[in-house]
């Protein structure tokens, strides 16, 4: 009897935990990586082809590293995801966006930068990876925020 109850409770716990787990997909491996290379490996984009069709708009000099605006557009047909890597941050991978049917491969966001660094954007289209990077100079680092 007791064992049956435990089994039922266990099954109930699994059912309750399920939707949350489905929602909480977060690539700990890639986001926990401490080098840009490991971060890119973590998202399955260890190698990429340089591309001029990824447009990164950002200030050349960011006075405040706590809020650095970055706008990204991919003009590569079929772009399904964009990853933002801040090369000299303690954890370089800042964000990854997956675009489904209907969404345009565009995003604007604000990030924290520890120091002057290249910002690398990796776009994935039809299973292939493309990248572009741009240097942003930071006067005051923003990782204490």
């Amino acid at each position: 009897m007791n064992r049956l109850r435990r089994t039922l409770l266990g099954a109930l716990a699994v059912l309750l935990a399920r939707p949350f787990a489905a929602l909480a997909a977060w690539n700990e491996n890639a986001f926990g990586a401490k080098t840009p290379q490991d971060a890119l490996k973590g998202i399955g984009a260890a190698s990429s082809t340089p591309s001029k069709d990824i447009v990164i708009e950002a200030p050349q000099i960011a006075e405040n590293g706590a809020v650095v605006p970055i706008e990204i557009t991919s003009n590569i047909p079929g772009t399904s995801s964009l990853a933002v890597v801040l090369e000299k941050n303690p954890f370089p991978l800042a964000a990854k966006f997956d675009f489904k049917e209907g969404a345009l491969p565009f995003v604007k966001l604000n990030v924290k930068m520890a120091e002057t660094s290249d910002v690398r954007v990796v776009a994935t289209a039809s299973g292939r990876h493309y990248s572009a990077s741009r240097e942003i100079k930071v006067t005051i680092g923003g990782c204490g925020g």
Partner: protein
Amino acid sequence: MAGPMKMRATLVGGTTAGAGGTTEIRVLMTHPMTTAQSGQALHFIQNISVKQNGKTVIESEISQAVSRNPVFSFRIKGGAKGDKIEVGWLDNKGETNKIEGVVA
């Protein structure tokens, strides 16, 4: 603490329903986005989803490197005035929030 969200969704370029325009979404999330470097407890949004009329169009994973009180802009091809847009987030402590609005 995680506070309210704000969102604006507008149809740009198109005249009436689905006429080649772009739906522009701008969303603000109130969240501390603290890093371990700050000496505070690590507390940051990890997942963001954008839905158009109930269908997920953008899914994102972010790190503590996104600035405090994150602001994002997204774009959806086409769309029409009155479309329902929903943006939700989930953080590393399991807190969630979402906002729903219509395209103007």
